[in-house]
């Protein structure tokens, strides 16, 4: 690899992200904050949900924000650049193996996903006030889950960005992302699905389940609801990550070279 080229591309993405910072922040923050406010503040404040729901909600919302941010940050530019503006061509010609450009995209997407997770966590904390009950007694495990989730989102973005045509972007949201969120244990723990045994097994195919449960397990371990164990979460995310990286790189190469 050519480190200077790689870093220059990362700098380019950072530059573009800085230029669009307000749009990016709004895109990342608005929806999670609305959810946090309505479910975490209104519903618990009115007594319709127990106060402990706050601690349940924040990790789920974090996972969802990270996954959405990473996927969008990587896939949307790729869809446009490969099919419409072709602006990626200049970088494909840079003196570096083509696959490293995909790796750079993943890294840039991971950084955005991590930032969005942390920002949403802080903001949700502010919105919810006291009683969220997050604990940081397992920083290493928390860091590991964050990294695996960020990698999943960015590699997933690479895969989607190289598979979806620009006319199918709407379909991508309604067919892939929406079910993923609603069956991703974002608003409820996995154990809450025990009344729906088939669904409970099926959602295990959804990587967001592991993201939400992993963050819950590391941030609110003392909660009254059992979580999927961190070892299972880490293992499953690692498998998803590896598969998406391999598949995404292959797709990317196929797009770049005919």
């Amino acid at each position, binding site marked *: 690899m*050519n480190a*200077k*080229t790689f870093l*220059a*591309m990362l*700098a*380019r993405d950072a*530059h*573009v992200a800085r*230029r*669009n910072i307000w749009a990016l922040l709004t895109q990342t923050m608005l929806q999670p904050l609305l959810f946090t406010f309505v479910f975490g503040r209104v519903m618990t404040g009115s007594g319709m949900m127990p106060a402990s729901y706050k601690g349940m909600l924040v990790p789920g919302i974090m996972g969802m924000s990270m996954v959405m941010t990473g996927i969008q940050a990587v896939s949307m530019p790729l869809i446009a650049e*490969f*099919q419409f*503006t*072709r*602006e*990626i*061509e*200049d*970088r*494909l*010609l*840079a*003196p*570096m*193996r*083509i696959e490293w450009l995909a790796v750079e995209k993943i890294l840039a997407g991971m950084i955005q996903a991590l930032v969005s997770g942390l920002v949403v966590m802080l903001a949700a904390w502010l919105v919810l006030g006291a009683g969220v009950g997050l604990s940081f007694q397992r920083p290493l495990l928390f860091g590991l889950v964050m990294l695996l989730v960020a990698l999943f989102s960015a590699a997933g973005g690479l895969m989607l960005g190289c598979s979806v045509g620009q006319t199918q972007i709407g379909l991508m949201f309604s067919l892939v992302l929406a079910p993923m969120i609603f069956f991703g244990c974002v608003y409820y723990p996995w154990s809450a699905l025990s009344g729906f045994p088939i669904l409970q097994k099926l959602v295990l195919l959804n990587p967001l389940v592991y993201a939400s449960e992993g963050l819950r397990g590391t941030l609110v371990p003392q909660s009254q609801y059992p979580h999927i164990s961190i070892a299972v979460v880490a293992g499953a995310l690692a498998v998803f990550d590896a598969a998406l990286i391999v598949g995404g790189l292959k797709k990317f190469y196929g*797009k*770049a*070279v*005919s």
Partner: protein
Amino acid sequence: MGVGITTKELRKVYTSPPPMAAGVAGFGMMGMRGTGSKNKKAFEIVALDGISLAIQPGEIFGLLGPNGAGKSTTIGILTTRVRPTSGEARIGEYDVWRQQVEAKWLIGVVQQRPNLDFSLTAREILMFHGAYYGIGSAERARRAAALLERFQLTTRADEMVRSYSGGMMQRLSIARAMVHEPEVLFLDEPSTGLDPQTKLLLWEIIREYNARGKTILLTTHNMDEADELCHRIAIVDHGRIIAEGTPAELKASIPGGYLVRLNVGRGSPELIERLQRLPGVTEVRADGNAVDLYADQGGALIGAIVSVVGESGTELCDVHISEPSLENLFLHHTGRSLRQ
């Protein structure tokens, strides 16, 4: 010094519609093979059918041909974007497909369609491009400023390029390809969409760049451009090279040089034979009422043609004389005009 380009028997067969990498806007369908309905590979286009080139270091070489002839695919292969089905492509000593990164260091590419980074300003585009090649920031800034000046873009250098006109984008694309001062510059239809004045500026810049010992491979379907700019030309059609040489050599290779195109009321074998016997006529081709005469003179022949046509009992509807040109050469080899 200087880096050349060689290709040996390059072939490219697309089994699915060529994606963006080929950069082909209008793709010629003449190589398409119809296959049985049960065959999954119903789509097969032979884009290149054995292209061998030896472009010398420091040469301006032109690939001339109609749309879909295989020009862009050739450039795609030489610039690591299209994988050849068979054959070999080299930039200098490097095999483009085995030593991609080494080859990429040596080349600069201007694609047929503008592909500027829409999230950046013109100056940033040049600056980041330089950064991809590891050029230090002071040097990058200097080169960017000089290129913007040379391409007359300085006044709008700090605007986002989405506000640029087509011609400005094209100029910036060429400037960008020069930032890292590549030994070999590929220009795929560089003057498409440029006004005549800008075209002249571009030709001047290309000549300047070449004067520094750089090799330039350009594609065009514009005869004047090929004639004016290129040291050597290969005429490409249906993925094959049908003629190669200096513009002067190529023009001299047309039998007779002059082309007299006639349109007669009614063509007949007898008329063709009589035309063939006229002094100075080297070749006559007829397609119905359209008759092409290759001859070593133009206007001087008209009188004789008029009387021959009259004597054959038909009338002369139209006469067009063209001087020796690459256009005629193309017509001679393919039976088609380049603009068809």
